[in-house]
């Protein structure tokens, strides 16, 4: 399928560097005056609702609806925070957007802030994006200089201050309220909900947290309309999506496609198939938190509903392809190790469960597994789901359940043989 690029249209422009001049020459900062001068904030929120845009960070929550939760007439200021904490394993699209076309994001932020009545916005950028943060800072400086930020933007009366705020290395700061805690200068520990950020967010004020890619869509919705956006891909998963494809593929990278694309097309056509002609064994469709899929799922289209129906999720759009040489127990160990490392430690089930999960999988991978370990793992996972302040605990549990669902014999083999049959495979 050849898809007319929206978010990555800039890539077709030779020598595009993403600075203000490049962005303007490519038609940038036309949505902003249109929004400020021709649309009321309420109408903008409506337009985004009608477009069907859903969050691109992982949760897929309808963006317009989220904006609509901001209470009217609150005495407290409203904040917009751009979540640029991209840390979901397998995902690298936000990094590309901020490094290569920062003004698209800036413009999206200004329009979105206008829509929700926000006059001070922040970009929470993960600490490891040293270069990305600098690029954003430079773009913001350019935007201020041109009057796209600051007081009385384009004479509209609307003012917005935008600040880049760097994180310092913690996946849990990608969780909305963990991010807000970190932005407030504290440990990035998610908050019990309710209250939700729309009611009590940053500094206990109404706040919208949106992903980078989500916000980058907003200028396009403004210039080309909600109907156009809604017509891209399936009705309930409208709009272009950036899929980060990596792993055992010939052409890893970010691919902008409608969500009607199938997993098969994504991996074989766009990703170039598996090197060496090897067979597909497993594929994670939406970042490491997403339950794994297998060859039997290749004809699923990559929209939120279809993936959920298949027992997985759209998540962050991070697609990790694994071929037949992959040890799924080792994959489980690596994924479990990640959540063990990243748990903030507040909730008992997550703090202790992510560790127990990891230690058990490590034991199995190293040939010290016991027969009862597999059902124990499943019970651990069940006890970790749906009972904590945030869903990191669920994100740790669901993938493991899926590896056991589709590859149980492989786990049993490790236990019976007291060794990893793929031994020598890059083990630490």
């Amino acid at each position, binding site marked *: 399928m050849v898809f007319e690029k929206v978010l990555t249209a800039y890539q077709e422009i030779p020598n595009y560097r993403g600075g203000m001049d490049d962005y303007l020459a490519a038609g940038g900062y036309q949505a902003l005056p249109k929004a400020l001068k021709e649309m009321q904030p309420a109408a903008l929120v409506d337009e985004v609702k009608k477009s069907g845009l859903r969050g691109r960070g992982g949760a897929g929550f309808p963006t317009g609806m989220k904006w609509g939760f901001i209470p009217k007439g609150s005495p407290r200021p409203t904040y917009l925070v751009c979540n640029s904490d991209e840390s979901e394993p397998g*995902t690298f699209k936000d990094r590309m957007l901020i490094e290569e076309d920062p003004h698209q994001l800036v413009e999206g932020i200004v329009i979105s802030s206008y829509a929700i009545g926000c006059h001070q916005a922040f970009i929470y950028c993960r600490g490891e994006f040293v270069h990305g943060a600098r690029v954003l800072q430079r773009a913001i400086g350019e935007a201020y200089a041109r009057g796209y930020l600051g007081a009385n933007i384009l004479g509209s009366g609307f003012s917005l201050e935008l600040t880049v705020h760097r994180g*310092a290395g913690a996946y849990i700061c990608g969780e909305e309220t963990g991010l807000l805690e970190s932005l407030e200068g504290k440990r*990035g520990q998610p908050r019990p909900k309710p209250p939700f950020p729309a009611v009590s967010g940053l500094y206990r004020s109404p706040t919208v947290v949106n992903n980078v890619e989500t916000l980058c869509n907003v200028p396009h919705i403004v210039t080309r309309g909600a109907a156009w956006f809604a017509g891209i891909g399936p009705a309930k998963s409208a709009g272009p999506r950036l899929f980060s494809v990596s792993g055992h593929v010939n052409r890893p990278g970010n691919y902008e496609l409608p969500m009607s694309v199938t997993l098969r097309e994504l991996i074989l056509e766009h990703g170039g198939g598996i090197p060496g002609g090897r067979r597909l064994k497993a594929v994670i469709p939406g970042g490491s938190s997403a339950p794994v899929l297998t060859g039997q799922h290749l004809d699923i289209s990559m929209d939120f509903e279809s993936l959920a129906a298949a027992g997985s999720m759209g998540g962050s759009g991070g697609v990790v392809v694994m071929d037949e040489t992959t040890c799924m127990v080792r994959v489980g160990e690596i994924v479990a190790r990640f959540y063990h490392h990243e748990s903030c430690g507040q909730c008992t089930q997550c703090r202790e469960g992510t560790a127990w999960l990891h230690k058990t999988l490590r034991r199995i991978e190293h040939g010290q597994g016991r027969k009862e370990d597999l059902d124990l793992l499943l019970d651990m996972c069940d006890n970790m789901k749906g009972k904590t302040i945030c869903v990191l605990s669920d994100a740790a549990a669901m993938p493991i359940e899926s590896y056991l669902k589709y590859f149980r014999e492989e786990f049993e083999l490790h236990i019976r043989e007291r060794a990893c049959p793929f031994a020598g495979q890059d083990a630490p």
Partner: protein
Amino acid sequence: MFSEATKKRFDEMVGRYPEGRSALIPILHEVQAEAGHLSPEAVEWVAAYLGLSRADVMSVASFYDMLELEPVGRHMIYVCQNLTCALLGAERLIRHLEQRLGIRMGETTPDGLISLKRMECLASCGTAPAIQVDGIYYERMTPEKLDDLLLKLRTGSLPDPRTLDTPA
């Protein structure tokens, strides 16, 4: 403990936020950039500056992977150990680094030049296996490229990622 100019920069950072405490992590980044790591004295200074208890600031600083409470080497090498990088050879890179430098991950070379750290996903899966050196990405790494990188680090420069040599 810090120069007037630095203090002024901190004041400006605090001023960006409706609540000054938000400047804590950005300030800790600055302090670490200048001093190499966050000593107890530095933590104490920052706590006093922001009107927080020392345990509070220590609690925040110790939460985050990038903030170092112990001295580290002049150059920090992060190696992603997560899924795609692991599938594409991260552990081999790690073994290579440990063998070349004679230290384990999490340690610093005796001459204080290089520290090694296992990190989680660096959002570079498309160009795995990936590492970062002092915040700069070096992607599609191989043991050979590592050797070239280490060589160049010893001469005191942080090489342009595009110029790492791979033998034919």
